[in-house]
């Protein structure tokens, strides 16, 4: 049984309410930070912990905090990014829905570290019921004196607001989130300037994921060094993984980083293996934006080492044979799944969610989707596979924000690892005309049809 940091108390009845949360040691990190530590000491602890941003990019959180411009004298802000819209990721919702006070406690402690007196939680519009839960939790915390003026007599003021988005994936990008929070259209800004210098209302701003902020109370209650002891190498601590797909026990799991993928997939404590007798075909380790991996690269890396649930091990081998931990949306496919259809589905999502500001993403995502749709529906041409490859390489790296990269990586990985499946779709349109074409006849049985012919 591995150590639980975030989900430790999640099964206590009534933990949603302030009284139960407080009785179980809630808000002690705020007491400790405000009474005994200086803001810089809090930042230092987080730096020592090696906590990395849990939103996907994995940037060290303590370092991000230390970049914030404290010299200019402008008011500073902390914004919590709860716009969790990545297909396959649902960990933040779980955390906010069942233990909302943990996030609020983290927000207070983190805001204290940054010297922010006005902080926001930006939550996606689809999580309206969670928004209400958070609103209620904030009201409870305020009534108990954890928010407002002069918290615990320390002279630290904090106003915390929840802001509801209006249903856009792009508003999870930090600068687009800031734009949206300011009441504008959620278009990503051009960087530099970075939010740490000029963010919300041109003030220095830090944007962190829900999970990152919710980890801060534990680090303060214990210490950064304790946190750094969990995990392997630069991947310290625990991570929430939202597992879905063809597995026995889908759901949100807290794992210690460094757990092997094999154990995570197959042990009964976690996913419990595949949901049926159908074999594993592919998996996506970190939400729809990261490259998909075929069965042979899941448990072992290309050079034969065990693949672990860490930032480094999952990206071992670069994009050729690796993927990314991303936001922890763990999607598993068995051999009834069609990779082309899955890629089309992802491409459709990015087409729908592209903000339309910069050219490659606006035009390219739509183009990708249309071609993938044709291939999936038996109207593909042989040259379409090359065309897809060419389009994705033209989007990647040429856009303002990472949405363009996120749209092109899954397509690139699908072609890289499952090219023969695309060829099968192009060459045998009759066989793939039904949606469930791989259920009766999995690809492994027809693979020889598109294999290299030797005469």
């Amino acid at each position, binding site marked *: 049984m591995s150590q639980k940091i975030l989900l430790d108390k999640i099964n206590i009845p009534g933990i949603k309410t302030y009284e139960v949360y407080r009785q179980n040691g809630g808000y002690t990190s705020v007491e400790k930070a405000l009474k005994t530590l200086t803001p810089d000491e809090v930042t230092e602890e987080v730096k020592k912990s090696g906590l990395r941003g849990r939103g996907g990019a994995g940037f060290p959180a303590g370092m991000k905090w230390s970049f914030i411009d404290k010299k200019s004298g402008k008011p500073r802000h902390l914004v919590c990014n709860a716009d969790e819209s990545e297909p396959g990721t649902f960990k933040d919702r779980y955390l906010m829905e069942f233990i909302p006070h943990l996030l609020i406690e983290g927000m207070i402690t983190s805001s204290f570290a940054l010297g922010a007196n006005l902080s926001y939680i930006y939550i996606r519009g689809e999580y309206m019921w969670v928004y209400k839960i958070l609103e209620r939790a904030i009201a409870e915390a305020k009534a108990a004196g954890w928010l407002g003026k002069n918290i615990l007599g320390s002279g630290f003021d904090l106003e915390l607001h929840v802001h509801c988005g209006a249903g856009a994936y792009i508003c999870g990008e930090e600068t687009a989130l800031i734009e949206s929070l300011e009441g504008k*259209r959620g278009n990503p800004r051009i960087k530099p300037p970075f939010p740490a210098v000029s963010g919300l209302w041109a003030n220095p701003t830090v944007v962190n994921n829900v999970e990152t902020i919710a980890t801060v109370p534990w680090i303060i209650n214990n210490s950064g060094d304790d946190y750094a002891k969990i995990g392997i190498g630069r991947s310290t601590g625990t991570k929430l993984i939202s597992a879905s797909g063809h597995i026995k026990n889908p759901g949100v799991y807290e794992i210690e980083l460094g757990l092997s993928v094999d154990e995570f997939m197959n042990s009964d404590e976690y996913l419990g293996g595949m949901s049926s007798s159908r074999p594993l075909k592919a998996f996506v380790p970190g939400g729809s934006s990261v490259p998909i991996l075929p069965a042979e690269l899941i448990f072992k890396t290309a050079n034969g080492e065990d693949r672990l649930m860490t930032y480094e091990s999952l990206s071992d081998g670069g994009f050729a044979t690796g993927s990314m931990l991303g936001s922890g949306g763990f999607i598993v496919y068995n051999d009834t799944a069609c990779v082309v259809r899955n890629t089309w589905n992802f491409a459709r999502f990015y087409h729908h969610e592209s903000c339309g500001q910069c*050219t490659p993403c606006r*035009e390219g995502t*739509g183009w990708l989707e*249309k071609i993938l749709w044709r291939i999936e529906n038996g109207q593909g041409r042989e040259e379409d596979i090359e*065309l897809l490859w060419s389009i994705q390489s033209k989007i990647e790296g040429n856009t303002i924000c990472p949405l363009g990269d996120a749209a092109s990586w899954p397509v690139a990985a699908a072609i890289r690892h499952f090219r023969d499946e695309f060829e099968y779709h192009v060459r045998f349109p009759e066989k793939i005309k039904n949606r469930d074409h791989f259920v009766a006849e999995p690809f492994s049985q027809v693979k020889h049809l598109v294999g290299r012919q030797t005469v």
Partner: protein
Amino acid sequence: MKVTIDGQSIDVEPGTTILQAARMIGGDLVPPAMCYYSKLKGSGGKCRCCLVEVSKGSEADPRPMPKLMASCVTGCMDGMEVNSKSSDRVTEARKSVTEFLLINHPLDCPVCDQAGECDLQNLSFEHGNPKSRFIEEKRTFEPEDIGPNIQLHMNRCILCQRCVQVADQLTDNRVHGVLDRGDHANISTGISKAIDNEFSGNMIDVCPVGALTDKTFRFKSRVWFNKPYNAHRECTTPGCCGKTTVWMFGGEIQRVTGRKDEYHEVEEFICNSCRFDHKNVNDWVIEGPREFEKDSVINQNNYTQKLEKVEIATEKNILLGRDEDRKKISMAEIPLNTNNKIS
């Protein structure tokens, strides 16, 4: 600060962007820019046409930048080395952006009023692929009437958002903006005929493509059949300089625009009264012919160069049988020729 672009060095002030430095040097190395407009704050960074490769970040930090940078929003650093036209990566990126801009563009240049002075035409002339790889149906929009003076052709729009910035920065009340997102993002007022501001006409001048054109000039002439003259008048509109370019056909003023420099940016913005309401020669003091680029399409109508008559060998044969065809396609109720009735 010293910046080197394609091997040519120049000293610039801190805060200058790479694109501005390149324009100071001039010549072939200037990156194309579809969305950047030096006179509009906050423009640039969107179209990605001006991507350049920074091979050396600065004297202090000589590492190259891993990604291509949008030159219009990237500031120069001391000792920076930039590859523009000389880099294959940059050429490739410009080609891709051009391809992306064109896949959903209607390519209706033959009937577009902007043809001949269109930035997208210039861009595709230089970086475009004559053959399209796009076989899908193009994305289209419903026509929308945005006002009495300006024609909106949303299908041609490349969403540079310059017109939005004009409305923000020149007029006191912006009534249009970008609606929807992704490839369905469109410029719209939401309310029919809503644009009614004394400086709204400048949206036409800043539009790099034919998405916003002058309704008073619509289908009157191709721009290369007109002769541009610098002209001015005493304009009573506050904020208007009254200095314009009038585009003449014979003795008739067909169109009035701002004076555009070699990067197709207006020198000063003009009011709608100058642009739309004063088409009489007597309204203007004509200063003289306006200079235009030697290689521009407008120069093709230059009387000083000898033009040879173009003859198409098949022309005669094409006209053969034409009268017969006309009879066939006319409606029987309305006879083409009363002497020759079709039964």
